[in-house]
């Protein structure tokens, strides 16, 4: 069986006065059929650009992109895929039901019952005759999901499907996505909501500055954990001593919190804190989270490329001054 999505050395660059700018660089992706695949990355990493290339909305500069075994952009593929963009907008003068009918007509589907059933499925059965302008964000997102199911797609592209939703709408959307997998659909999610991705995705790829920095099955990527040490009455000078490779330290009124990988020695850290007069409150081992993996992968990549999260390099500071 062919891959649901495959890209080989995919490059997308734009011309600028200072030379070409690469938004996607040598991207190699493989998404298996029937899995929920998380596509993660900071803002501007190239996630939406990649999705647009896969849908044929924009064109790659070089490299290959295949969707369901055919070249990306092939109009025949569009009959088997769906796309829910980030913050979708629907024609506000239309009702939920009219929106469904409109999108159905683009597939040549004239089945009012199907539209109603799908709206029922996303709990909008009672609101389908209200104009979209009266819908909440969550309701609009649910209409988006309903329209994305009109063609019973094999592959769904969801761009930030839970972004900006309240917790209840969040859970509803998450549950719907899990149902899609149960129905054998492949779901490609681009998201910042790492906790959601961790809960529902089978595999993830982390992209930074257009390049994949980590890719694999979640259970394999999340091997290894972290340790959190909390201590009181610590001097401010201790922070600099404790900070190190992949170790985050914060201090507030003498209360210090150290977050470090479990591969580092907790004993040595505890001794350092005690020697400085600090009183250990707790030492808590915890499972590695996707957030940790994300920060590690993006942080390492940024360091390798001379840029730190939340701070500027000397060059950038110089440029500003």
């Amino acid at each position: 069986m062919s891959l649901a999505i495959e890209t080989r050395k995919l490059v997308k660059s734009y011309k600028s006065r200072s030379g070409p700018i690469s938004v996607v660089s040598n991207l190699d992706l493989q998404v298996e059929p029937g899995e929920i695949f998380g596509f993660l990355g900071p803002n501007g990493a190239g996630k939406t650009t990649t999705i647009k290339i896969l849908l044929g909305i924009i064109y790659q500069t070089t490299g290959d992109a295949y969707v369901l075994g055919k070249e990306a952009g092939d109009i025949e593929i569009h009959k088997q895929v769906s796309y829910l963009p980030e913050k979708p907008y629907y024609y506000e003068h239309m009702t939920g039901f009219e929106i469904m009918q409109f999108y159905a007509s683009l597939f040549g589907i004239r089945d009012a019952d199907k539209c109603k059933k799908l709206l029922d499925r996303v709990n909008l059965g009672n609101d389908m005759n209200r104009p979209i302008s009266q819908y909440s964000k969550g309701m609009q997102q649910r209409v988006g999901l309903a329209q994305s199911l009109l063609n019973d797609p094999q592959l769904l592209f969801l761009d930030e499907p839970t972004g900006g939703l309240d917790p209840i709408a969040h859970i509803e959307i998450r549950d719907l996505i899990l149902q899609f997998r149960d129905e054998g659909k492949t779901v490609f999610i681009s998201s910042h909501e790492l906790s959601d991705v961790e809960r529902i995705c089978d595999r993830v790829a982390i992209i930074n500055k257009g390049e994949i920095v980590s890719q694999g099955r979640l259970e394999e990527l999340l091997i290894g954990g972290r340790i959190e040490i909390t201590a009181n009455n610590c001097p401010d000078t201790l922070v600099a001593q404790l900070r190190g490779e992949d170790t985050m330290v914060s201090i507030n009124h003498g209360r210090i919190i150290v977050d470090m990988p479990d591969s580092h020695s907790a004993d040595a850290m505890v001794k350092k804190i005690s020697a400085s007069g600090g009183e250990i409150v707790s030492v808590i081992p915890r499972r590695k989270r996707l957030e940790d993996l994300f920060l590690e992968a993006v942080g390492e990549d940024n360091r390798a490329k001379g840029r730190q999260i939340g701070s500027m390099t000397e060059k950038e500071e110089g440029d500003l001054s």
Partner: protein
Amino acid sequence: MSVILSIAKTTLGEAIRRKVLLVILLIGVLFLAIAPALEALSPRQELTVLRALTLGIIQLTSAVIAVVLTVYMIPNEIERRTIYTILSKPVRRWQFLIGKYLGAVSALGLMMALMTGIMLLVFVVLRKIEGPAELMMIAKVPFAFFIQMSLLAAVSVFFSTFASPIVNFFLSGGVYLVGTLFDSFFKVLSENSTLNPLVKFMATVIHVIVPNFQSFNVQNSAINPGQQIQAEGLMYLGLSGYAVTYIAILLILGIIVFEYREV
């Protein structure tokens, strides 16, 4: 075909609800309604002035509506991301563009029909028309304007495939002005053998490329009683053929540009 019609229908539904268009339409309708009161300001013959004024109002309002309706059409779809949900369906870009154009022209037609209806109603109520034959003669003029505005909308849709709304507004407005007011001027320049070759060449290019909007201004026969158009049916057929050819060329060019455009 159903895809194009669906997009056209949705575009029409959205266009007739756009507040800015409704405001322009309302202003046009208000002017049409008060036009009979303005005729006293002019020393010219009452009937001539009233007809020229009302037809002028319809033409000007329609031109503004045609441009405002179309300059935002494609950029808005991109900005609001609706284009992504549509183009990710089995919809080809040319179907999208043609659907948008047809929707815009339908909305334009509806608005022009409303204005024409009001104008005719004013004439009938004020007894400014003698019989159905004269009514028909006047009603034909907005029809010619409609063909003219459909051509203007095609110009604007073509520009909207690559230009921002503001730039498009001035480009389309400029093409309309040149095609309406200066077509004869450029024609004379292009035929003047004593002129600098470069200027002559430029004038010829402008004369050939810019549609001759002036030829759709057929209001003289309706404004001045007694004037008649020879072979009227043939003339309207010719005008329609001219417009359809230009519209087809503009839309094909627009499709080519839009096909390669990154949205």
